[in-house]
C-alpha cells in the first residue's frame, strides 16, 4: 500500500511541476482578461475604432520590439486550411483566404514574417496554448467558456451559421428544427455547441445532434437521410449545396457570430500588440477590403 502511495505522490509532483511552467505569468491574467471581455463586446467596437489612430499607433511600434513569438522574427499562425473563404490552400499550394490576408497585414505591422501552420481544427487552440504557434485564426467564435482558457482579440469578421435541408423537407424555418429532428453538425464547431445545448438554453439536446468529423461527412449523412438538417457555416454551406443537387440553404440564418483571433493566456505582450494592429486595420478599412474581396465580390 505504501508503495502505491509513494508512486501516486511522485505522479502528483511530476504533474504539478509540469503545470508550473505553463502558468508562470498567471497572476497578471485575471485583470487583463476582464478588460478584454468588456472590450470585446460588440458595441465597444466603434469606440475602439475612434481611439485607435490616436492612441494605439505608437504603442504597436513599441510593442514590436518586446513581443515574444515562438520563433524570433516570425509570427506562426495556427489554422485549418479547409474552411473557405477564410482559409484554404491556393492553386499553387500556398495559403490564402480572409484570415491569412489579415494575418499577413498584422505580421507586417509588427515587423514579423507570417508562417502558416496547417492542422486539424481541434488542434488549433491547443497549438497556441502549448506554445507551438503564436496566433490561432481559423474562424474561431468567441464564447464565455472558451475565454477561460484562451485570450481573444477584437472580432474582425462575422460568421453566419445556416441550415441545409433536402429540397422538399418539412423544415421551413429555424423553429421547425425543434420538432424532434436529427441535426447533423461538424465536430467542435459552434453549430454543434448551440444545437446540442439543453432545450432550456435554446438548443435541442445532445440526443438530437449527430456530430461528424468534417462538414462533408455531415452532408453525406444528410443525403443518405441519417440526419434531417445540417447546421454549418454559411460559406462552406454554399459550396456544399452547389456541389450536391437536391439540397438547399434555408433563408433564415441559424445564428450570427463573431470571429476573433485566439492567443495564449501567457503572452499578454503579443496579445496586446496583435489586438492593436488589428484595431488599426479595422479602423483604416483594410479588413473590410479583404472581406469584400472574398465574400461580397462573389455576389
Amino acid at each position, binding site marked *: 500500500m505504501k508503495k502505491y502511495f509513494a508512486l501516486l505522490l511522485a505522479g502528483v509532483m511530476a504533474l504539478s511541476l509540469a503545470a508550473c511552467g505553463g502558468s508562470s505569468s498567471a497572476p497578471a491574467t485575471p485583470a487583463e482578461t476582464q478588460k478584454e471581455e468588456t472590450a470585446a463586446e460588440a458595441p465597444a467596437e466603434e469606440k475602439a475604432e475612434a481611439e485607435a489612430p490616436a492612441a494605439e499607433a505608437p504603442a504597436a511600434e513599441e510593442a514590436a520590439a518586446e513581443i515574444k513569438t515562438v520563433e524570433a522574427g516570425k509570427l506562426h499562425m495556427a489554422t485549418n486550411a479547409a474552411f473557405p473563404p477564410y482559409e484554404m490552400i491556393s492553386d499553387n499550394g500556398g495559403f490564402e483566404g480572409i484570415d491569412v490576408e489579415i494575418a499577413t497585414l498584422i505580421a507586417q505591422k509588427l515587423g514579423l514574417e507570417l508562417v502558416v501552420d496547417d492542422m486539424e481544427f*481541434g488542434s488549433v487552440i*491547443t497549438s497556441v496554448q502549448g506554445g507551438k504557434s503564436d496566433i490561432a485564426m481559423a474562424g474561431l467564435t468567441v464564447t464565455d467558456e*472558451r475565454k477561460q482558457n484562451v485570450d481573444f482579440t477584437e472580432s474582425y469578421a462575422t460568421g453566419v451559421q445556416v441550415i441545409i435541408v433536402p429540397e422538399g423537407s418539412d423544415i421551413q424555418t429555424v423553429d421547425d428544427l425543434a420538432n424532434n429532428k436529427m441535426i447533423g453538425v461538424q*465536430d467542435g*464547431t459552434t453549430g454543434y455547441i448551440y444545437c446540442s445545448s439543453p432545450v432550456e438554453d435554446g438548443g435541442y439536446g445532445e440526443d438530437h445532434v449527430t*456530430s461528424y468529423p468534417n462538414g462533408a461527412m455531415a452532408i*453525406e449523412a444528410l443525403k443518405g437521410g441519417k440526419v434531417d438538417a445540417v447546421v454549418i457555416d454559411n460559406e462552406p454551406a454554399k459550396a456544399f449545396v452547389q456541389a450536391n443537387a437536391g439540397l438547399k440553404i434555408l433563408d433564415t440564418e441559424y445564428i450570427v457570430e463573431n470571429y476573433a483571433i485566439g492567443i495564449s493566456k501567457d503572452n499578454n505582450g503579443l496579445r496586446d500588440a496583435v489586438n492593436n494592429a488589428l484595431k488599426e486595420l479595422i479602423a483604416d478599412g483594410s479588413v473590410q477590403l479583404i472581406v469584400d474581396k472574398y465574400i461580397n465580390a462573389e455576389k
Partner: protein
Amino acid sequence: MGTLFQDLAAQFNQAFIEADRWQRYLSGIGISFTVTLGALIIGIILGVLVAVIRTLHDQQKGTDHSVLLSIANAFCEFYTTVIRGTPMMVQLLIMGFVIFKSSRNLVGVAILSLGINSGAYTAEIIRSGIMSIDPGQMEAGRSLGMDYITVMKDIIIPQAIKNILPALGNELITLFKDTSLVTVIGLTDLTKAAQQIQAKTYQAFMPYIGIAIMYLVVVMILTKLLGILERRLRESDRR
C-alpha cells in the same frame, strides 16, 4: 503554488462538474461498453463458425472433398483476407456511409462493423486453439460413437478455449479501445464526449487525461476479471 492548484481545480470543474458534464462521459462510456459487448458476441459467433469451417476443410482426408465445404472455406478465407487487410476505420466509414447510409441506428452500425472486424481475428485465434488439441482427442471421441459436432462442442472447443484465453483477452481489450474509432460515424462514445467538451471549453488537458484514465481503469478491471477466469479454468490442471 496556490494559483496553480486553483487553476487545476478550475479546469477540473469546467471539464467535469460544470453543466453536469460528467454525465456526458458516463453516457459515452456506456456506449463504448454496449458496442464492445455487442461486437464481442458477434465476433465470437463469427469466429467459431469460420474457425470450424476452416479446420473441417483442412482436416479432410482422402479424395472425397465436399464441394459445399470448399465453397464455404473459400468464402471464409475471403472474409478474413478482406477484413484483416483493410483498416478498421475504413470499414467503419464504408458501413456508415455506403452500406447503411440511411440508418439512424448508429450503435447498431458500430456493433456490426466492430463485430465483423473482430470475427476475422477471433477466427484465427480459435483456429489456432483447435489446431493445438491433439488429433487423438477427436479420434477417441469419434470411436466412442459421438458425431463430429458433439466432439467439437463438448471436447475440442472447451479445451481450445482454455488454451487461447490470453489471446482472446487481448482481443477483448483491443476491441474495447477500438470503440474510440466509432467517432467517425458520428456516434458519441467516450472519446467523442471528451472531444466535444474540449471544443466547448478550449482546454484539452482535463478531458483527454480524464478519458485516458477511464479507459485504463476499465482495461485494468477487464484484465483482472480475465485473470480470475483463467485461474478458475486451470483448477483441474495438472501442470
